[in-house]
């Protein structure tokens, strides 16, 4: 018998066809609007090796990224078992489909995080978020210096520049949705604003971020 087994709601290791896979068309490569140093990152190098079934590289990738991925999943699910499942499923997907990554898809770290986030989001949307799980970590979104963390690579620096132009109260809506995986309705409850206001604010901020990032990319290209 090979494969993974779901046990008692604990070791739910089945990997289902992930929606993220289905939205990675081989044709029509995406047009990037940020300058990425993805191709040169250690993560990207390891992904290339994983695509060649290099088990040593997979182990190194796990050691390099698992704490980041688990932190992201735990913040969304608030449940260690679900967070473990999300990372497990995403890493298994990486092992089997590492060749689907290319630098055109953005930073390698961002790609990995996307896999874990979609898995974690899928879990909590289906099963609900644990209310008795781990305590909420520090409110990174309300930390005035939080944006200083967005400097680890050029993607982060570009995003930080644009996020700094956004009113902090509006910026918080984006961070709550991305970091905690809150739906628009949940964000509205959290910030005690009407749902319609939250939706329209999120959309305006997203569009302004896109505009800002595209302008920044143009400057860098020129």
């Amino acid at each position: 018998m090979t494969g993974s087994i779901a046990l008692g709601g604990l070791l739910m290791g089945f990997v289902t066809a992930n929606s993220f896979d289905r939205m990675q068309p081989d044709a029509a490569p995406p047009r990037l609007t940020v300058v990425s140093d993805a191709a040169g990152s250690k993560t990207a190098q390891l992904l290339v090796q994983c695509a060649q079934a290099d088990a040593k590289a997979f182990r190194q990738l796990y050691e390099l990224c698992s704490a980041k991925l688990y932190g992201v999943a735990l913040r969304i699910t608030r449940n260690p078992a679900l967070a473990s499942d999300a990372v497990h499923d995403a890493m298994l997907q990486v092992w089997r489909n590492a060749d689907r990554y290319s630098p055109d898809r953005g930073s390698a770290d961002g790609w990995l995080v996307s896999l874990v986030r979609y898995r974690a989001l899928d879990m909590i949307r289906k099963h609900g978020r644990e209310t008795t799980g781990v305590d909420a970590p520090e409110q990174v979104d309300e930390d005035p210096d939080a944006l200083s963390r967005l400097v680890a690579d050029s993607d982060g620096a570009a995003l930080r520049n644009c996020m700094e132009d956004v009113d902090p109260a509006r910026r918080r809506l984006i961070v709550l949705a991305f970091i905690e995986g809150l739906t628009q309705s949940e964000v509205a409850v959290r910030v005690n604003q009407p749902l319609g206001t939250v939706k329209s604010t999120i959309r305006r901020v997203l569009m302004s971020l896109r505009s800002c990032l595209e302008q920044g990319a143009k400057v860098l290209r020129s």
Partner: protein
Amino acid sequence: MSDSTDDPTLFAAEYALGCLDLADMREAEAQAARDPAFAAEIVNWQARLGALHMLVPPVTPPAILWSRLALATGIGKPARPSGRAFWQASTAGSLAIAASLALFAFLPRPPGQPTEPARFAAALSPLATPAKFMAEARPDGAIAITSLDGAPAPSGRAYQLWALPQGAAVPVSLGLLTPGTQVVTPPARASAQEQLLVSDEPAGGSTTGGPTGAVLFGGRLVPISPAATPGR
């Protein structure tokens, strides 16, 4: 249904941001599956927003997570200069249990078949009864135990961990458990078939030297590498 579904750019942005409910998530995924341009738009938004993950502090996952991955991928001997199988090299003598009603039993790889995917078996328990703790006996003799739901004992009560080696009649206290992962060092090295038990005790733990409350959770250590099998 989100009223942004008629604006592909906004819809893709909201999907990548992660703020859609399940129905809209599924709609976005279906749209991406049939529309490469929409799928590319989502990837673009992932690239734009992806760096936000840097705002989240890293958290070390439970050690058992890699074990699960190594099993699921069939990786037998990665990243070890000795050339020995990973299980032999990294978890020689180690044992794992899933406590509560879910038992996770690892069977050793047959000798002489190093490239065959890892074999394992499991005793299934009712799905309505999720496991509470996961424990792993490490090669150095320590036992790492993780509370899977992170919930503490009820107010005024404590969870106390006990070891009961096969054939022994009296359990030995390994201390009180707190939410999260903690590492305890048993007085004697853990052995196969040894039971780990968690009892309900008053705050501060049992004062009698043995469990005084109900034994709420239990599991049996099972080998996860050939080196851990009895007799070696």
